[in-house]
């Protein structure tokens, strides 16, 4: 009887052998990239959302359920960005490790100070994120905080490699600080831009420029012809330094506005991998900032 109990317990407790890699499932490409910097060869990363996808509108594909089923840790952006598919993925995964409240449920947004948390919100305002602007991956300081959180979380899951995670974090920190100096020296301060979507607020806050208007009249609502007319007039008058967009959002509208007003359109990758050169978080930020000041 006792033997059976022991065998049963042995079967139930998920045995993680010391040599096995920590299986990390990241929702967005930038999360996968930062996790890779911290985990390196100790982790095996699966990224659910493809760089060409709109992170706001993702279908829960069965392959994602399969990946989360095997995950030791699930890392996600949070602030309701993944609300359309992540709850169902977590439930369908049947994976006890990654349920809310478990160490394997890693919400990156817990480690950042959030901008634009609305005091009150309803959906007549468009698809406003009620918990604040979720696109903090453009903020180097915040990414560093997230990386610190990742290092602690990975060390807790895999204590035998805690030193490696610590060392990787130190390397990452050095690199971010060096880059911060480099990016901070670029002439972004005081500039004014118009943006398609509310995507670049953290970038503006960190690099000292302002976003004066949006091409979308309300978040998630594409502009009407009349609104475009109004924008042409407004942009023509205020002459901002550029109109910001990403490869997947409103390219047509921004190209049209740029052509009509002579103000340049600036295509910024919305995530790692969204443009051919943005192969990790650093090159993603390099591309973002060089596009801004071009």
């Amino acid at each position: 009887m006792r033997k059976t109990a022991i065998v049963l317990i042995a079967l139930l407790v998920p045995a993680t052998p010391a040599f096995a890699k920590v299986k990390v499932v990241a929702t967005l490409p930038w999360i996968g990239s930062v996790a890779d910097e911290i985990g390196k060869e100790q982790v095996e990363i699966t990224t659910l959302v493809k760089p060409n996808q709109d992170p706001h509108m993702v279908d829960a594909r069965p392959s994602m359920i399969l990946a989360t089923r095997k995950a030791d840790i699930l890392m996600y952006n949070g602030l309701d960005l993944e609300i359309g598919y992540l709850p169902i993925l977590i439930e369908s995964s049947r994976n006890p490790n990654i349920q809310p409240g478990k160490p394997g449920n890693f919400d990156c947004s817990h480690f950042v100070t959030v901008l634009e948390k609305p005091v009150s919100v309803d959906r007549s305002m468009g698809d406003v994120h009620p918990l604040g602007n979720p696109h903090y991956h453009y903020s180097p300081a915040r990414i560093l905080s997230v990386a610190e959180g990742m290092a602690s979380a990975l060390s807790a899951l895999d204590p035998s490699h805690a030193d490696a995670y610590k060392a990787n974090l130190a390397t990452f920190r050095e690199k971010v600080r060096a880059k911060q100096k480099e990016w901070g020296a670029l002439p972004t301060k005081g500039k004014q831009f118009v943006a398609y979507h509310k995507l670049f607020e953290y970038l503006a806050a960190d690099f000292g420029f302002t976003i004066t208007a949006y091409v979308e009249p309300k978040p998630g609502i594409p502009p009407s012809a009349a609104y475009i007319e109004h924008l042409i007039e407004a942009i023509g008058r205020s002459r901002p330094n550029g109109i910001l967009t990403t490869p997947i959002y409103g390219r047509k509208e921004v190209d049209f506005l740029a052509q009509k007003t002579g103000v340049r359109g600036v295509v910024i990758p919305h995530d790692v991998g969204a443009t051919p050169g943005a192969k990790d978080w650093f090159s993603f930020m390099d591309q973002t900032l060089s596009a801004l000041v071009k």
Partner: protein
Amino acid sequence: MAACMHMGGPMKIRCLLVLLFSATLVSSSFGEDVESRLKTLEDTTKAQQQKFEEQQRLIDELKSSLGGPSAPGAAETAALPTPSKPVQTATPGQEGTTAKLTGIFGGSAMTNPYLSLVVNTFFYGSTLKQKELDSRTVPGFTNVPVDVRKGFNFDSAELFIFAPVDPYLTLYANIPVTESGTELEEAYFVTSSLPGGLQVKGGKFKSGFGRINGQHPHAWDFVDAPLNYRAFMGAEGMGGEKGIQVTWLPELPIYLQLGIEALQGENDQLFGADAKDGPHAFTIFAKTSMEIGDSGTILFGPSFIKGKANIPTVADNTTFTGNTDLFGFEMVYKWKPSRGTGFILQSEYLYRKQTGDLRMGDVADPASTVAPLTRAQDGIYVQGLYQIERWRVGARYDVLDLIKKDYILSGSQQSLGKQPWRATGALEFNPSEFTRVRLQYTRDESSRDGKTNNELYLQMLLGIGAHAAHSF
């Protein structure tokens, strides 16, 4: 009062005010004295709140100036890690306790369940008279007409409630409110923390049999269910059934979900509540999926449900008792190459076999006759939807008596008339994620008598409240 204890400063004061206010209502003897004191208190609170906000603004300003480099000269300071540290400490073990009020399920207060309301309303036009519609059935399959009125229809306002019960279970409920009253369509728990890829669902829920069956009508790609669903399960699909479901996702390189169910068996086309004491419908199904390229996903699998039947829906003034087997095969292909473009191709084949006795006339009537009946019939639908930005166009073809059309009463095949089929086209506009306007035309040749029903639907779907995720 307990609620006040968890609130922040200004909130607490507001709570206090409310309490004071109710106190004045109760004891009028305080009267004006309290009123004036209340006024003073209110002013103080306002002043305090302003102070709060000012301080918060200051903190935010400081934070953002520390968060990023402002000028080349300030780069040194900016390179320091933000001292205004993460809201949460980096100890993952504490995540459950120190985490902010909102978890993965979003929303604002954890103590309240997530609520949403979906309103489904439509205008219906037809070339037939209402009287003809009310008696329009699919002979040989079902004697139940579709419940629509020419003109304005109110399908339902569906209330969805869900929340984690505790770390082990999540509870879901779906309560459609219709003009004829309120029903409990679904109320079930789902486990989240069983080992080995197992999951248990129990209560009243929609069976995992097939594809459309498990979806809520507002999530369907057309206003109505396809003909084979209507013929074998009813216009709403199998609907909520009481029972238990166990599904298993084995750890394999490909996605494979296996499931079994024991259900009470109350659907009046398949089983009937009185067919047998105790649960009398049992389901087994499998679904597998793989990716085709970067943007394509295919999902397919068979389902089977078996049970005892005692149903009045074969034809008017009859009761059928016997056994039901329903076999289904589903296939769906989704292609989503970009944000504004998508394509879905979906099909389900259903085959139903019933063997037993058909009593003609009332059971209590000694003059009623009984004859052996075997029905082995099938049907299929194929539908495609193409999305361009906020628009979707769809087409569907559904047909019965595809391969098998046995209706053998007392040993002889009955001739039932023409083959039932329909062709449908739809155009959708989705102004936002929460609104859908759908225009649908159907040419319906399902009544076997050659009488065509040209149908036009203009449907409006609206959702408010929590953003419930939809499965694939």
